């Protein structure tokens, strides 16, 4: 069963990649822009920490690790859920009606209907910097690495839940574009450890809109700064959000009135 979905996802991805690469000029510029954005901000962090020696008590390699992990967690959902950005069009032009008649879960195509292969390059760059900076952080145990990987998966689940919420709102209001960009801007606040923010903003973006759990907890876990309770809380938030988002999706589907294509 899973093999079937992976096959379908691959077919969709090949199709969207062919469309994206029709214009090699455009694809190259988008890729260049993403790489420049990563490099510029990394350069800025290095200059900044080079002068201050620390940000919120974290050393240069810890900050680089935070940023590389953020970049990985920011890019991974973009890679898998790229079709969410096209969902509004699909609802407006009736293509979504067509999808509902297919022998597939209604959520599959809106979420996984074609990944952006250009993001793979950014993912590879992020993984390189994660490993490179991670190896320069001291006192990291196997348990810390395990907690880090577990919380990475959890962060992906939180991202999945956000995207499902956005799709649900997309059916009810077609306001997908604004919500997905709001999600991106909220998660951008996790580029750096959430300790830089003052309360109550810090609490808000850690627990209410769980950007802190999503972006900061995995890196902190590698540094041994997240307790077992913290890990359990994070997992609870991740799984809870996914279940809630699926309920919301079911509710939204029942309200769907069709585009009458």
């Amino acid at each position, binding site marked *: 069963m899973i093999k079937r979905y992976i096959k379908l996802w691959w077919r969709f991805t090949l199709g969207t990649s062919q469309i994206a690469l029709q*214009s090699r*000029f455009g694809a190259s*510029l988008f890729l260049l822009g993403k790489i420049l954005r990563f490099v510029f*901000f990394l350069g800025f962090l290095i200059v900044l920490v080079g002068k201050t020696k620390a940000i919120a008590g974290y050393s240069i390699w810890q900050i680089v690790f935070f940023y590389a992990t953020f970049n990985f967690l920011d890019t991974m959902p973009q890679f898998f859920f790229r079709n969410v950005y096209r969902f509004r069009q699909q609802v407006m032009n009736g293509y979504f009606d067509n999808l509902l008649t297919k022998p597939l879960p209604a959520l599959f195509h809106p979420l996984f209907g074609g990944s952006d292969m250009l993001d793979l390059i950014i993912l590879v760059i992020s993984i390189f910097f994660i490993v490179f900076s991670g190896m320069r952080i001291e006192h990291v145990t196997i348990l810390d690495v395990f907690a880090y990987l577990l919380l990475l998966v959890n962060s992906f689940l939180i991202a999945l839940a956000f995207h499902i919420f956005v799709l649900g709102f997309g059916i009810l209001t077609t*306001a997908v574009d604004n919500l997905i960009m709001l999600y991106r*801007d909220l998660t951008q606040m996790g580029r*750096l450890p959430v300790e*830089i923010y003052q309360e109550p903003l810090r609490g808000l973006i850690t627990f209410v809109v769980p950007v802190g759990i999503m972006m900061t907890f995995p890196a902190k876990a590698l540094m041994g700064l997240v307790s077992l309770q913290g890990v359990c809380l994070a997992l609870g938030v991740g799984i809870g959000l996914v279940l809630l988002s699926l309920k919301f999706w079911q509710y939204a589907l029942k309200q769907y009135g069709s585009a009458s294509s």
Partner: protein
Amino acid sequence: MMKKYLQVVTSTWGEISTYRFNFTMWRIRNVLQLLTVYFLWLTVTPVKGQLFGYSQPLILTYVLGVSLISSVVLSTRTAEIGENIDSGNLSLFLVRPLNYFLYWFARDLGDKAVNIVFVIVELFLFFLILKPPLFIQSHASFLLLTLIAIALALLLNFFIGCLLGFVGFWSSEVWAPRFIYFILIGFLSGGAFPLDIFPQWLQGIFHFSPFTYLLYFPLKIYLGALSPEQIAQGMLIAVAWVAILYFATKVVWLRGLKVYSAQGN
């Protein structure tokens, strides 16, 4: 004659008011971006002392100043030019008694007017809630020079926006070059951080780039951080860039019209 362009300004204002949800989300996104940069600098800059030559009031004034000035300088409607050309709707403008550049400049002014109103409200709330230490410029000459620098920055961004839109004459890929531009100005205009945190040799290169005069240069004047010679030199460079980009825009526009074709309009 100017009445029709004033009408364009007011209709742009009205258009934004119609799509209130979109605009509100755009403003929320701007506030979130501001919060990230603000708290970063608040955290790293010592309460007493300096970082990169900036005290806390100076750097926080810089950060909040970026928010205010970008609403004037960087908000633009020229992003629609590329679509306008690609879709063939340019044909409608060519038969109208409208100067194409003045039309888009008027649309820009309408967009900026709305953004300024909202950013002032946001910054007011920001001051009320967070009470940041700020530097208030009291010298009238610096304030006047800041306004002149902002006016030059406004023109710079307008012409660059037009040039990016004119890519539509030759390619349907109008968003990719603009995406690169957004990335570049995000860092090279002084939007994320002041450019003088970088080594001297890099600052020397930035000195001659047009991006420096979009945000960084006006703010440095406001902060009183430039000597009269530096201000004069910067103004000359900004004026030179405005002239170069003005002529480049004209040339590209005329060349683009020669290759322009529209179907079905």
